[in-house]
């Protein structure tokens, strides 16, 4: 694999993780968020500051990025207890703007100059910034995120998320603590995105506030919905297609975002459940194919 393909694969892996983590919040617990890039950013900055400014190792930075972002997620999830639906969408959007503004205006976060010279991870004395080891690291983490998602969807927590998504009042009536599970969902989703942020920061080697803006949140949510919200396969496929699309569409040069937009519109028009959503054309076909085969 060439370094170029490797590098694209690393970014696709990071965005698959982001899509999967948002899916826990939006797909499982039904809390639509347009601020996921904030958690991505908090993870990236946590890891960047710890390693570049305080000399910690990548692994410490990575672990603390997950932990701290998860805790921040729990706190920033608190508004979801007060506001619902489209109001919540706007609040998450607002959180994104405020977080980016803090990165930019508070000197501790490097301000406008960002954080540079973020070291590459090392293991047993080997340093790897690019190359296959980093790719493996990223995809192992993506798999771990998938594992967490799968586990959640199978356990009581997952079922509680389901009831919160479908009908909050009914959930409360049957004894599910809606606030608790909303905060859980925010915390888990944020923590996983924080890890993705750390992997991003150490791969690029520098972080700037502008990477984690609202537009990135839009892109992540699009991946989840495009692939099929609430499923495990959907966000993965959505992220792979939409993150790789701008690279694959390079030959149309300046028209790649026109096509990207058209792709989103067409998918929502004809397959509102997403490419691989539960009642989607492709998924039905695939299932039939699979059943015939077995």
């Amino acid at each position, binding site marked *: 694999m*060439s*370094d*170029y393909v*490797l*590098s*694209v694969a690393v*970014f696709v892996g990071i965005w698959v993780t982001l899509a999967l983590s948002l899916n826990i919040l939006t797909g499982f617990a039904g809390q639509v968020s347009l601020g996921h890039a904030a958690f991505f950013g908090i993870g990236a900055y946590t890891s960047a500051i710890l390693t570049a400014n305080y000399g910690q190792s990548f692994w410490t930075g990575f672990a603390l990025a997950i932990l701290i972002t998860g805790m921040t997620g729990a706190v920033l999830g608190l508004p979801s207890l007060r506001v619902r639906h489209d109001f919540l969408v706007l609040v998450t959007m607002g959180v994104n703007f405020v977080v980016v503004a803090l990165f*930019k*205006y508070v000197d501790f976060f490097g*301000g*406008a*100059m*960002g954080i*540079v*010279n973020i070291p590459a991870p090392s293991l047993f004395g080997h340093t790897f*910034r*690019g190359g296959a080891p980093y790719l493996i690291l990223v995809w192992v983490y993506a798999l771990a995120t998938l594992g967490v998602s799968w586990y959640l969807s199978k356990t009581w927590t997952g079922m509680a998320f389901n009831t919160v998504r479908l009908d909050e009042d009914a959930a409360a009536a049957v004894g599910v603590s809606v606030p608790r599970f909303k905060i859980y969902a925010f915390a888990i989703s944020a923590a996983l995105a924080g890890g993705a942020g750390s992997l*991003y920061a150490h*791969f*690029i*080697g*520098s972080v*700037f506030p*502008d*990477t984690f803006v609202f537009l990135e949140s839009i892109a992540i949510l699009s991946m989840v919905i495009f692939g099929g919200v609430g499923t495990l396969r959907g966000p993965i496929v959505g992220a792979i297609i939409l993150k790789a*699309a*701008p*690279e*694959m*569409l*390079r*030959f*149309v*040069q*300046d028209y*790649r*975002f026109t*096509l990207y937009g*058209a*792709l989103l519109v*067409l998918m929502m*028009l*004809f*397959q509102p459940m997403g490419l691989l959503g539960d009642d989607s*054309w492709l998924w039905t076909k695939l299932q039939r194919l699979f059943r015939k085969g077995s």
Partner: protein
Amino acid sequence: MSRKLFLFLTLIIVTVMLVGCAQQPAATQAPAQEAGGESQAPTTGGETIKIGIFSPTTGFAAADGTSALQAAQLAVTMINDNGGIMGKKLELIHYDDAAKPDQAASIARKLIEQDKVVAGISGSYSGATRAAAPIFQEAGVPMISAYAIHPDITKTGDKIFRVGTLASVEGRVGAELVGSVIKGKRVAILTIDNDFGVALTEAFKAHAKDLGLDIVLEEKYPLGETEFRPIIGKIKEANPDVVYATAYYNEAANFVSQAKDEGLNATIVGQEGYDSPKFIELAGPAAEGVIITTDLNRDSDRPMTKTFLEQYKKTYNEDADMVGASAFDAVQLIAYAIKTAGSTDADAMVKALMALKDFEDVATGPFYRYTPEREVVRPIDAQIVKDGAFHFYHEFTDPDLITP
């Protein structure tokens, strides 16, 4: 709307994607001389010297990315029309990075591995440039940052050069301009909230202190701001005789027009961010009397500056801006390095650039030399807006002032 229609449309898009992937090698048959084209790709394999450039030609930064690409392409065309280098034609390969670090990081690898460029140019912003620089450095391919100003870009390693003037120099010259040339006493500072503004202001303040300037007000504002009236009110109360306002031409045009509306009488001093014909077009008469520091002297009689300004206008039917001039010079520098080294060997090219002396073949020149930190030493101009155009105002050549 039926399912069939969906399948049909999806099929079209997928086919377009696949055909595109398959066509990528074929697309590289387009002649390189076609200025203004999108993908500047080779005539025939092996005959050309490839230079890579990434710049944002889509998204919010498309204006700068397009200027950079067009000017770089102009330089390549001009060099090729004069017979190329060492009997070979130059070829410019461009990818759009949308000013995003992750895209720039992938593009840098693509340029190095697939396109086998001998040198790279960043026509993009600081974040993207900083992400691409280590990849060029590790691959041992020289890269020149055209106008990204983050101080850490060139610290990446010995293969990374810069065309633009370091903000620490430009800010210092700005203070000198205010203190010694305009002879201002009371200064208000307005800082745009990105690396460009912050770095300029820091340098300005440091030198302003040496000159004994009285800083009566300091304010920061967000990139893309269009409503400056409340802040102008504050500036008026502080009653400065000079406002040092870091901005790009869009913010600058709004600030300058609104300052005029609100009756602010202080002289406004800007920097290369203002240096676009768009600034004068958008600000109109309010731009008159604004003084900026820049590398591009539009009244210069240096042949290369004149040629660049004329040819750019002729080719693209737009007046050239500072961003374009920097990308143009990046190509000129690479061409010079290859010519002097007599090869496309990276170390030889780097050596040639480090030994560069009083280089005249650049639009933003002359380049006296490169410092060991690969920052350029050049005279810095002050330009004033008069009768709807930038004109020469002052030139700073004091080595203490212009050496990074």
